[in-house]
Protein backbone atom coordinates (compact mmCIF):
# COMPACT_ATOMS: atom_id res chain seq x y z
CA UNK A 1 0.00 0.00 0.00
CA UNK A 2 2.07 2.85 -1.27
CA UNK A 3 0.54 6.17 -2.11
CA UNK A 4 1.67 7.93 -5.23
CA UNK A 5 0.85 10.73 -7.61
CA UNK A 6 -2.16 9.11 -9.21
CA UNK A 7 -3.90 8.62 -5.89
CA UNK A 8 -3.80 12.33 -5.31
CA UNK A 9 -4.86 13.12 -8.86
CA UNK A 10 -7.90 10.86 -8.59
CA UNK A 11 -8.86 12.37 -5.25
CA UNK A 12 -8.52 15.84 -6.76
CA UNK A 13 -10.57 14.90 -9.81
CA UNK A 14 -13.39 13.57 -7.64
CA UNK A 15 -13.27 16.73 -5.55
CA UNK A 16 -13.28 18.89 -8.66
CA UNK A 17 -16.37 17.13 -9.99
CA UNK A 18 -18.11 17.49 -6.64
CA UNK A 19 -17.50 21.22 -6.66
CA UNK A 20 -18.53 21.56 -10.31
CA UNK A 21 -21.75 19.65 -9.68
CA UNK A 22 -22.51 21.94 -6.78
CA UNK A 23 -22.00 25.07 -8.86
CA UNK A 24 -24.07 23.79 -11.74
CA UNK A 25 -26.92 22.07 -9.96
CA UNK A 26 -27.58 23.97 -6.76
CA UNK A 27 -29.96 26.93 -6.65
CA UNK A 28 -28.62 28.39 -3.45
CA UNK A 29 -26.11 31.02 -4.54
CA UNK A 30 -24.10 30.70 -1.35
CA UNK A 31 -23.59 27.01 -1.92
CA UNK A 32 -22.68 27.72 -5.53
CA UNK A 33 -19.88 29.97 -4.30
CA UNK A 34 -18.76 27.23 -1.95
CA UNK A 35 -18.62 24.87 -4.94
CA UNK A 36 -16.13 27.19 -6.60
CA UNK A 37 -14.02 27.11 -3.45
CA UNK A 38 -14.02 23.31 -3.54
CA UNK A 39 -12.90 23.34 -7.17
CA UNK A 40 -10.04 25.68 -6.38
CA UNK A 41 -9.05 23.48 -3.44
CA UNK A 42 -8.89 20.45 -5.70
CA UNK A 43 -6.65 22.32 -8.14
CA UNK A 44 -4.38 23.17 -5.25
CA UNK A 45 -4.07 19.50 -4.39
CA UNK A 46 -3.07 18.76 -7.99
CA UNK A 47 -0.39 21.43 -7.84
CA UNK A 48 0.93 20.18 -4.53
CA UNK A 49 0.97 16.58 -5.75
CA UNK A 50 2.85 17.42 -8.94
CA UNK A 51 5.17 19.61 -6.97
CA UNK A 52 6.00 16.65 -4.75
CA UNK A 53 6.40 14.31 -7.71
CA UNK A 54 8.67 16.70 -9.56
CA UNK A 55 10.57 17.85 -6.52
CA UNK A 56 10.00 21.38 -7.75
CA UNK A 57 8.56 24.00 -5.48
CA UNK A 58 7.07 26.46 -7.94
CA UNK A 59 3.81 24.54 -7.55
CA UNK A 60 3.74 25.63 -3.92
CA UNK A 61 4.06 29.25 -4.91
CA UNK A 62 1.16 28.73 -7.30
CA UNK A 63 -0.93 27.27 -4.48
CA UNK A 64 -0.24 30.21 -2.19
CA UNK A 65 -1.27 32.61 -4.94
CA UNK A 66 -4.43 30.56 -5.42
CA UNK A 67 -5.24 30.94 -1.74
CA UNK A 68 -5.09 34.68 -2.09
CA UNK A 69 -7.13 34.69 -5.27
CA UNK A 70 -9.76 32.35 -3.84
CA UNK A 71 -10.10 34.62 -0.86
CA UNK A 72 -10.42 37.72 -2.98
CA UNK A 73 -12.96 36.02 -5.22
CA UNK A 74 -15.01 34.86 -2.25
CA UNK A 75 -14.90 38.35 -0.80
CA UNK A 76 -16.16 39.93 -4.00
CA UNK A 77 -18.79 37.25 -4.51
CA UNK A 78 -20.15 37.64 -1.02
CA UNK A 79 -20.16 41.42 -1.30
CA UNK A 80 -22.20 41.18 -4.49
CA UNK A 81 -24.56 38.70 -2.84
CA UNK A 82 -25.12 41.09 0.04
CA UNK A 83 -25.85 43.84 -2.45
CA UNK A 84 -28.39 41.59 -4.18
CA UNK A 85 -29.96 40.72 -0.87
CA UNK A 86 -30.35 44.38 0.03
CA UNK A 87 -32.49 44.93 -3.04
CA UNK A 88 -34.23 41.64 -3.40
CA UNK A 89 -34.28 40.03 0.07
CA UNK A 90 -33.39 36.69 -1.48
CA UNK A 91 -30.31 34.86 -2.66
CA UNK A 92 -32.09 32.08 -4.51
CA UNK A 93 -30.72 31.69 -8.02
CA UNK A 94 -34.21 30.93 -9.33
CA UNK A 95 -35.44 34.30 -8.15
CA UNK A 96 -32.59 36.16 -9.81
CA UNK A 97 -34.64 36.57 -12.94
CA UNK A 98 -34.64 40.29 -13.66
CA UNK A 99 -32.47 39.60 -16.70
CA UNK A 100 -34.86 37.26 -18.46
CA UNK A 101 -36.94 38.61 -21.26
Amino acid at each position, binding site marked *: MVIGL*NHYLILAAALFLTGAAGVL*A*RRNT*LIMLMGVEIMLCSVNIVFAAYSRALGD*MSGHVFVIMNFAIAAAE*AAIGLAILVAIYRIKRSVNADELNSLKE
Partner: protein
Amino acid sequence: MEAVLFYLFGALLLGGAIAAMTSRSAVAAVVWLIFAFVNAAGIYALLAAPVLAILQILIYAGAIMVLFLFVVMMLQGPTLKSELKSIGDRKWWLPVGAVLVALLNWMHGVSLEGFTNDAPAGFGEIKGVAELLLNKYMITFEMISLVLLVAIIGAVALASNKKGMPW
Protein backbone atom coordinates in the same frame (compact mmCIF):
# COMPACT_ATOMS: atom_id res chain seq x y z
CA MET B 1 0.88 4.48 7.72
CA GLU B 2 0.94 6.96 4.88
CA ALA B 3 -1.69 4.96 3.05
CA VAL B 4 -3.93 4.88 6.10
CA LEU B 5 -3.64 8.61 6.56
CA PHE B 6 -4.21 9.26 2.89
CA TYR B 7 -7.39 7.22 2.79
CA LEU B 8 -8.55 8.73 6.06
CA PHE B 9 -7.99 12.33 5.04
CA GLY B 10 -9.08 11.71 1.47
CA ALA B 11 -12.33 10.08 2.49
CA LEU B 12 -13.10 12.77 5.04
CA LEU B 13 -12.22 15.53 2.58
CA LEU B 14 -14.35 14.10 -0.19
CA GLY B 15 -17.15 13.17 2.19
CA GLY B 16 -17.14 16.63 3.69
CA ALA B 17 -17.24 18.23 0.25
CA ILE B 18 -20.09 16.00 -0.91
CA ALA B 19 -21.99 16.63 2.29
CA ALA B 20 -21.51 20.37 1.83
CA MET B 21 -22.71 20.27 -1.76
CA THR B 22 -25.79 18.20 -0.94
CA SER B 23 -26.87 19.69 2.36
CA ARG B 24 -30.10 21.63 2.29
CA SER B 25 -29.03 24.16 4.83
CA ALA B 26 -26.33 26.67 3.96
CA VAL B 27 -25.14 26.76 7.54
CA ALA B 28 -24.57 23.02 7.51
CA ALA B 29 -22.79 23.36 4.18
CA VAL B 30 -20.35 25.88 5.63
CA VAL B 31 -19.61 23.67 8.62
CA TRP B 32 -19.07 20.63 6.40
CA LEU B 33 -16.79 22.63 4.19
CA ILE B 34 -14.68 23.77 7.13
CA PHE B 35 -14.38 20.12 8.09
CA ALA B 36 -13.38 19.20 4.53
CA PHE B 37 -10.77 21.93 4.32
CA VAL B 38 -9.16 20.89 7.58
CA ASN B 39 -8.72 17.47 6.04
CA ALA B 40 -7.27 19.05 2.92
CA ALA B 41 -4.59 20.42 5.22
CA GLY B 42 -3.86 16.83 6.18
CA ILE B 43 -3.45 15.97 2.51
CA TYR B 44 -0.93 18.79 2.11
CA ALA B 45 0.95 17.49 5.12
CA LEU B 46 1.16 14.08 3.45
CA LEU B 47 2.49 15.76 0.33
CA ALA B 48 5.38 17.18 2.33
CA ALA B 49 3.99 20.68 2.14
CA PRO B 50 3.68 21.85 5.76
CA VAL B 51 3.51 25.51 4.74
CA LEU B 52 0.50 24.87 2.58
CA ALA B 53 -1.11 22.82 5.34
CA ILE B 54 -0.83 25.67 7.82
CA LEU B 55 -1.99 28.26 5.31
CA GLN B 56 -4.92 26.07 4.28
CA ILE B 57 -6.20 26.13 7.84
CA LEU B 58 -5.31 29.76 8.36
CA ILE B 59 -6.88 31.10 5.19
CA TYR B 60 -9.58 28.67 4.13
CA ALA B 61 -10.89 27.31 7.38
CA GLY B 62 -9.95 30.36 9.39
CA ALA B 63 -10.85 33.31 7.25
CA ILE B 64 -12.77 32.47 4.08
CA MET B 65 -15.22 30.07 5.65
CA VAL B 66 -15.81 32.34 8.59
CA LEU B 67 -16.77 35.07 6.16
CA PHE B 68 -19.10 32.61 4.47
CA LEU B 69 -20.67 31.68 7.79
CA PHE B 70 -21.10 35.35 8.51
CA VAL B 71 -22.94 35.98 5.27
CA VAL B 72 -25.06 32.85 5.63
CA MET B 73 -26.18 33.99 9.04
CA MET B 74 -26.74 37.52 7.80
CA LEU B 75 -28.67 36.76 4.68
CA GLN B 76 -31.06 33.95 5.24
CA GLY B 77 -32.57 31.27 7.31
CA PRO B 78 -31.11 27.81 7.17
CA THR B 79 -32.79 26.58 4.01
CA LEU B 80 -34.16 27.81 0.74
CA LYS B 81 -37.79 26.87 0.38
CA SER B 82 -37.32 25.87 -3.23
CA GLU B 83 -34.61 23.41 -2.28
CA LEU B 84 -36.67 21.59 0.31
CA LYS B 85 -38.18 19.38 -2.33
CA SER B 86 -35.08 18.54 -4.35
CA ILE B 87 -31.60 19.92 -4.15
CA GLY B 88 -30.84 21.41 -7.45
CA ASP B 89 -31.41 20.66 -11.07
CA ARG B 90 -31.47 16.99 -11.92
CA LYS B 91 -30.25 17.62 -15.45
CA TRP B 92 -26.78 18.59 -14.28
CA TRP B 93 -26.11 15.38 -12.45
CA LEU B 94 -26.04 13.53 -15.77
CA PRO B 95 -23.00 15.20 -17.39
CA VAL B 96 -21.14 15.19 -14.10
CA GLY B 97 -21.92 11.51 -13.74
CA ALA B 98 -20.72 10.88 -17.27
CA VAL B 99 -17.41 12.55 -16.54
CA LEU B 100 -17.15 10.53 -13.37
CA VAL B 101 -17.70 7.30 -15.27
CA ALA B 102 -15.09 8.33 -17.83
CA LEU B 103 -12.73 9.06 -14.98
CA LEU B 104 -13.31 5.67 -13.37
CA ASN B 105 -12.78 4.04 -16.72
CA TRP B 106 -9.53 5.85 -17.12
CA MET B 107 -8.54 4.98 -13.58
CA HIS B 108 -8.90 1.34 -14.45
CA GLY B 109 -5.76 1.37 -16.54
CA VAL B 110 -3.78 3.73 -14.39
CA SER B 111 -0.83 2.45 -12.44
CA LEU B 112 -1.15 3.13 -8.76
CA GLU B 113 2.45 3.15 -7.71
CA GLY B 114 4.22 5.30 -5.18
CA PHE B 115 6.25 8.38 -5.82
CA THR B 116 9.35 7.36 -7.71
CA ASN B 117 11.54 9.91 -6.00
CA ASP B 118 12.13 11.14 -2.51
CA ALA B 119 11.47 14.79 -2.04
CA PRO B 120 14.75 16.71 -2.06
CA ALA B 121 16.16 18.00 1.20
CA GLY B 122 14.36 21.07 2.43
CA PHE B 123 11.42 20.46 0.16
CA GLY B 124 8.21 22.12 1.26
CA GLU B 125 9.78 24.33 3.86
CA ILE B 126 8.93 27.97 4.12
CA LYS B 127 12.47 28.90 3.09
CA GLY B 128 12.08 27.34 -0.33
CA VAL B 129 8.70 28.95 -0.93
CA ALA B 130 10.06 32.31 0.16
CA GLU B 131 13.10 31.97 -2.07
CA LEU B 132 10.96 31.40 -5.16
CA LEU B 133 8.29 33.91 -4.22
CA LEU B 134 10.67 36.78 -3.60
CA ASN B 135 13.18 36.19 -6.37
CA LYS B 136 11.90 34.33 -9.40
CA TYR B 137 8.23 35.17 -8.90
CA MET B 138 8.87 38.67 -7.61
CA ILE B 139 6.54 40.22 -10.14
CA THR B 140 3.61 38.03 -9.14
CA PHE B 141 4.25 38.95 -5.53
CA GLU B 142 3.54 42.58 -6.39
CA MET B 143 0.68 41.69 -8.69
CA ILE B 144 -1.16 39.82 -5.99
CA SER B 145 -1.25 42.90 -3.82
CA LEU B 146 -2.96 44.71 -6.70
CA VAL B 147 -5.51 41.88 -6.87
CA LEU B 148 -6.18 42.32 -3.17
CA LEU B 149 -6.51 46.04 -3.81
CA VAL B 150 -9.22 45.34 -6.38
CA ALA B 151 -11.09 43.30 -3.80
CA ILE B 152 -10.71 46.08 -1.24
CA ILE B 153 -12.17 48.60 -3.67
CA GLY B 154 -15.00 46.15 -4.29
CA ALA B 155 -15.70 45.80 -0.59
CA VAL B 156 -15.94 49.55 -0.22
CA ALA B 157 -18.01 49.94 -3.37
CA LEU B 158 -20.56 47.26 -2.64
CA ALA B 159 -20.75 46.77 1.08
CA SER B 160 -20.12 50.15 2.64
CA ASN B 161 -23.19 51.86 3.94
CA LYS B 162 -23.24 55.11 2.07
CA LYS B 163 -25.66 57.77 3.12
CA GLY B 164 -29.21 57.12 2.17
CA MET B 165 -28.90 53.37 2.06
CA PRO B 166 -31.33 51.76 4.45
CA TRP B 167 -30.06 48.89 6.59
